[in-house]
């Protein structure tokens, strides 16, 4: 079995940049990725239709596809072992670039078929060529809404509106990079051309329908409005996928957007020697930041010298990312829950049950989970975890802590796997 110098987990912007930076000389580098094709969630594409930005990051690194890492551990002497359905990968050093998935917030009707995440609408379109609906609302918070709404409108959907919960106050205060401004302007132009309204300070507070989505209620500053739609794409930023980092013992903290993230130093080193982290798992910041962090992590992991320019650029882009968190702030969402609103989709746990668990004396997320089963279903709290953590803290009259979030990130088995794979390795 080959022992690699550097194993990069994740084939998105951060992972590909890390692999490209680590490759060269005689370093043996592998990219271990869950998907059949490289690109991660940022570059979903159909087979043979690679976006140019992706192939520019192609390197000589070995690529192991269809290999979600379900368990990571220190190897017997030094280095690490990564268990995947495609076999065990052994490497001296590991770069974790596992990315993020859409963050969802529960609201009445959010389990109706036709309500999907913004990422789902994007993946359907870009990776499968399918429009999520004919009359679509795009809602939540963050700059990603604009990009996806523009894509949907261009592809022929009737986008009834983009409902951004943030008031976007303070944009002027932050000096935005000109490339970002141009990108935003491009999307805004597309939306204007298709007469798609962009509403700040608006949130979708309910979805209606019997067996399928038929309409949504949008709340603005002073009034509520019902709009007929056949699809709603809604997400409030992203949840970093930190399971592998937590499993390896890497230190974490709660970032400005309320996400649990991996703590790294100037070289993207985690608190565990030999483990580096890059991209969304060190703080949600988008593909540009992810690539810069990946480049730094890759060079550091391959013991290569780093140019100070990359670090300076990273600092600049990271400041911008932090500003974006402030501007696209998630609104308070707890008041909009009804007693029967499901918080946990898998175990079908309504808000009333979560509240009851806390009334019974649960003061931390783990106790809430054990009492009402929220987060114990198929997805293992990947979807409801952040919401349950915030609910637990709120109902106990305190802000959410690292431990509230870590209760759901702590999974020995990081990816769903078969008993056959477990027994075989």
């Amino acid at each position, binding site marked *: 079995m080959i022992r690699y110098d550097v194993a990069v987990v994740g084939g998105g912007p951060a992972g590909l940049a890390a692999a490209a930076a680590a490759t060269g000389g005689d370093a043996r580098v592998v990219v271990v990725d*869950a998907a*059949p094709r490289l690109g991660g*969630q940022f570059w979903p594409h*159909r*087979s043979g239709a690679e976006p140019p930005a992706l192939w520019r990051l192609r390197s000589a690194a070995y690529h192991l596809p269809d290999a979600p890492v379900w368990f990571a551990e220190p190897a017997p002497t030094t280095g690490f072992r990564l268990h995947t359905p495609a076999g065990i990968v052994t490497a001296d050093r590991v770069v974790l670039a596992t990315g993020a*998935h*859409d963050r*969802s917030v529960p609201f009445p009707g959010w*389990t*109706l*078929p*036709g*309500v*999907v*995440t913004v*990422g*789902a*609408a*994007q*993946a*359907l379109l870009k*990776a*499968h*060529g*399918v429009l*999520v609906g004919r009359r679509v609302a795009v809602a939540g918070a963050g700059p990603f809404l604009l990009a996806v709404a523009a894509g949907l409108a261009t592809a022929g959907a009737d986008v009834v509106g983009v409902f951004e919960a943030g008031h976007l106050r303070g944009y002027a205060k932050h000096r935005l990079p000109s490339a970002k401004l141009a990108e935003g302007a491009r999307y805004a132009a597309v939306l204007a051309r298709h007469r798609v309204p962009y509403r700040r300070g608006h949130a979708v507070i309910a979805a209606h329908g019997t*067996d*399928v*989505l038929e309409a949504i209620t949008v709340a603005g500053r002073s009034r509520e409005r019902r709009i007929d739609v056949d699809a709603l794409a809604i997400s409030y930023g992203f949840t970093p996928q930190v399971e592998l980092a937590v499993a390896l013992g890497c230190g974490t903290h709660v970032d400005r957007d309320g996400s649990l993230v991996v703590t790294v130093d100037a070289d993207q080193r985690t608190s565990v020697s030999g483990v580096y982290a890059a991209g969304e798992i060190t703080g949600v910041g988008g593909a540009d930041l992810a690539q810069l962090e990946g480049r730094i992590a890759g060079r550091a992991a391959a013991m290569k010298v780093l140019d100070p320019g990359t670090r300076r650029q990273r600092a600049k882009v990271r400041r911008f990312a932090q500003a974006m968190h402030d501007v696209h702030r998630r609104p308070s969402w707890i008041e909009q829950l009804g007693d029967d609103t499901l918080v946990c*989709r*898998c175990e*079908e746990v309504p808000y009333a049950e979560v509240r009851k668990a806390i009334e019974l004396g649960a003061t931390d997320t783990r106790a809430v989970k054990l009492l009402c089963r929220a987060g114990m*279903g*198929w*997805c293992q709290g*990947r*979807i409801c975890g952040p919401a349950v953590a915030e609910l637990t803290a709120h109902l106990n009259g305190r802000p959410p802590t690292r431990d509230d979030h870590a209760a759901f990130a702590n999974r020995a088995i990081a990816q*769903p796997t078969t008993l056959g794979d477990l027994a075989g390795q």
Partner: protein
Amino acid sequence: MTFTFDGQPIAAEPGQSVAAALWAAGIRSWRRTRHGDEPRGLFCGIGICFDCLVVVNGVRGQRACLVEVHDGDVVEQP
């Protein structure tokens, strides 16, 4: 190419996921929940949420958003 969903023939394009092909055919849900008997279909679209579970060629617990559909596949509700 064509596959069947609960016996009904459905057209698909090469490379599409089961979920995408069902969605393109206007099907929005393909399972019901254990407790509330509620319809579920696609939600996260990237293999995280497990809402879209489906039976493909007799294999249970498949995520419809991840499994690529092939000609002649037999897809059923769980």
